[in-house]
């Protein structure tokens, strides 16, 4: 199907006047949406814009307060995912909904209404393999879901829809959990389905994905549709402005790069991962104060282990680490903290904060050891509150109150809480691991600005990121990591995306 026929193709879905409210928010506010046959529609919006809500309504998970839905021109009453499935609508949710203890094949057929009491396992297996072949979705039908990576789990979710012969596929932020490589593969799968005449709604908050995946884009802000355009008539800058409702800084003001003394030095550092396999294989790095050193690489190539080794959370098996020119090889986490090192960990929710404790307690989790928060081992609750109020204001953390339990904050605000605490506590080195992962563009901008501000204030910043755009924007120096090795170190201004990509995938040999 060519693009022009697609633009006039049959209307598959028409949603009109959709409203849906949750306590305190209008998640969908008089939304209208159409989807044509063979088209990929991108649904763009910041976190909380109402993208998932709108699509959950179409997929039968939520009931709208008002509004109507037509599928292939006929008024549809979608009261459950099963109704949606019968109409050919299927959704891959933001949080996957697979049963861990069951196999891939079992998950694929789970919930199919007309499944015989004793299903024909061999036939199901064959059908799954056929589909997986046809769409290039590699899966092993007998594998258990708990054995799969997130990327593989996503393939199972997609297969599940294809197996049910879904014609309208909804993908809710599918790339959030994928590596850049896997995202590319997903893109190919979507294009393949499109070529077969299937339609898709692709939810995202990333502009470049809108450009590469979609034919048409609808921008949501605070539950309302703020724009609807053909993708070829727009550009990322335009989309960003529409999405946030103001001009977005794609480049952050920073002072010229004037590095000073050495803050961190690693020579020949090696460490093991949880399974006892080498995670770092002789890492050499140097970071000076007033410098942002970006670590580029596909997630899982030793970045987390690098941060943990420096901060004393993981033993160094060979080599040496020095912080502020003092040897800290295998120093305890406490002594690393005392040397003025802040750490924004990869796992925010399970490590970065204590969800059951209040925002104010979490903000104090570094400073509680000494005056003014404590004197002689006794805490001073008033000072806790003062500190919390000041930091909540300074970092614009959106929380109902300082005593709210932290697990009730959104991802972006949890991240700001961690960042606020770590910046406050650190005086020489700040290590940030995927600090903007999963955050919307507004929060991402705030986090990046803060990193630059700390660099300008004279800290050394070690930024682990998989987002090349982010690295280009904030880093002064970029080091590429692949399979536990540093492949190359270069000034950020010399880094070309092409070369970084090749280094990241190990396609060209190490240069150092």
């Amino acid at each position: 199907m060519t693009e022009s026929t697609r633009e006039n193709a049959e209307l598959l879905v028409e949603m009109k006047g959709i409203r849906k409210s949750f306590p305190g928010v209008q998640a969908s506010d008089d939304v209208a949406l159409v989807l044509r046959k063979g088209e990929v529609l991108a649904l763009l919006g910041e976190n909380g814009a109402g993208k998932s809500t709108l699509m959950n309504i179409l997929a039968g998970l939520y009931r709208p307060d008002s509004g109507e839905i037509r599928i292939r021109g006929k008024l549809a009453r979608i009261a459950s995912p099963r109704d949606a499935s019968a109409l050919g609508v299927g959704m891959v949710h933001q949080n996957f909904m697979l049963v861990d203890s069951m196999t891939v094949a079992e998950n694929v057929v789970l919930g199919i209404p007309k499944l015989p009491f004793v299903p024909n396992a061999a036939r199901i297996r064959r059908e799954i393999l056929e589909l997986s072949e046809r769409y290039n979705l590699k899966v092993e039908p007998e594998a258990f879901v708990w054995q799969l990576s997130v990327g593989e789990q996503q393939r199972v979710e997609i297969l599940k829809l294809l197996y049910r012969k879904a014609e309208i596929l909804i993908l809710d932020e599918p790339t959030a959990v994928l590596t850049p490589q896997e995202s590319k593969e997903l893109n190919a799968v979507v294009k393949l389905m499109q070529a077969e005449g299937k339609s898709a709604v692709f939810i995202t908050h990333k502009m470049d994905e809108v450009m590469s995946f979609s034919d048409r884009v609808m921008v949501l802000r605070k539950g309302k549709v703020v724009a609807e355009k053909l993708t070829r008539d727009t550009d990322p800058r335009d989309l960003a402005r529409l999405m946030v409702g103001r001009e977005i800084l794609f480049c952050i003001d920073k002072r010229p790069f004037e590095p000073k003394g050495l803050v961190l030095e690693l020579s020949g550092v090696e460490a093991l991962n949880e399974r006892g396999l080498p995670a770092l294989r002789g890492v050499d790095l140097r970071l000076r104060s007033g410098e942002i050193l970006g670590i580029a690489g596909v997630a899982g190539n030793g970045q987390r282990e690098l941060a943990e080794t420096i901060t004393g959370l993981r033993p160094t098996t060979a080599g040496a680490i020095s912080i502020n020119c003092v040897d800290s090889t295998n120093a305890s986490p406490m002594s690393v903290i005392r040397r003025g090192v802040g750490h924004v960990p990869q796992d925010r929710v399970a490590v970065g904060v204590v969800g059951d404790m209040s925002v104010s307690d979490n903000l104090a989790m570094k400073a509680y050891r000494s005056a003014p928060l404590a004197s002689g081992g006794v805490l001073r609750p008033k000072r806790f509150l003062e500190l919390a109020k000041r930091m909540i204001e300074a970092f614009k953390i959106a929380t109902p109150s300082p005593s709210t339990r932290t697990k009730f904050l959104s991802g972006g605000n949890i991240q700001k809480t961690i960042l606020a605490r770590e910046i406050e506590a650190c005086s020489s080195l700040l290590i940030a691991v995927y600090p903007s992962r999963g955050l919307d563009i507004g929060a991402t901008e705030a986090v990046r600005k803060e990193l630059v501000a700390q660099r300008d204030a004279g800290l050394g910043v070690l930024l682990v990121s998989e987002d090349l755009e982010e690295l280009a924007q904030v880093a002064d120096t970029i080091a590429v990591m692949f399979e536990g090795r540093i492949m190359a170190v270069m000034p950020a201004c010399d880094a070309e995306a092409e070369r970084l990509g090749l280094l990241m995938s190990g396609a060209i040999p190490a240069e150092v």
Partner: protein
Amino acid sequence: MRLHFEKRKSLSIGALFLVPAISFLASLLLTGLLLVAFGADPMATYAAMLKGAFGSGRAFTETLVKAVPLMLTGLGVGLAFKLRFWNIGAEGQLVVAGVAASWVALFWNSWMPPFLLLPAALLVGCMAGALWAGIPALLKTSLKVDETLVTLMLNYVAILFAESLYYGPWRDPKGFGFPGSAPFPDSVLLPHIAGRAHIGLYFAIALALILWFLINRTRWGFELKIIGSSHKAARYQGISVERKILAAILLSGALCGLAGATEVTGISHRLQQGLSVGYGYTAIIVAWMSQLNPLAVVPVSILMAGLLVGGDQVQMKMGLPAAMSLVMQGMILFPMLAGSLFTEFRIRRAGKAAKDAQTMAPGGAA
């Protein structure tokens, strides 16, 4: 009517008190049904229990006598539970401490100045309790051995060890074959307040206050809370998790140990059968009912002790089975466990709930 749970954003103070109270009432109700089944009048039975436990000065001091070991073990168990260290070995820690205190009382008076004997007995008792709790703690922190089983098994070891002493080498030769040690010297006996109630009560109340302060107002307590929520998060904050757990469990064992030491020096005045009557298990109920709040342990222990004393009275006066008060204890725990749901969650009725019924639906909030 459709009900619907919603996670609370902050713990409601009301629920903190309401839940134990409602659980207690629910247990009265359930036990009431059971009493009817036994052909007894529940109201009369409860009245008799109340009178038996609190109705006279003598009754009340007897209740306090039982409340003291419940408070001390309740504090100890609660402290361990705060760290999610499932210490169900309070009974064994109590018994071992009773043995240790008896050892001091029986054999140290030959050389120790009399005024030091009582403090020494209490201290050695605490140390023995700490040691007994320290074994599972060390196994857990160094080898990741599950503490639930170890603490439970050590109860039997302690109880049989005590028995072997008062049936064997420590048996009083002048005791007419009665299983028990010789009586302790007077200098090691705990002073009494009224009736059999002894000054262990003051210790328990003071320790509840101190523990509350330690947990809520000190760096140490702050770190315990972090460890109790997540070991990973604690390690990341630079806290030495294993050391802190070990220290806290030693303290937990010491508190349970003090219960044993005050029992032998304050009540039985010798080592004999009846040291292990299940305080260490009731302590688990006390700890949950107090929602791990040391201050709440004091009134809750008095309530539970009242239940025990009142239950005995009813058994004697109304001819009901002795197990009745134990049944009641158990019946409190069930609504309590269900009740903890209500401190964490809030119930909403269908009308209001229908709209946001999907709060719990997977894939809901972004």
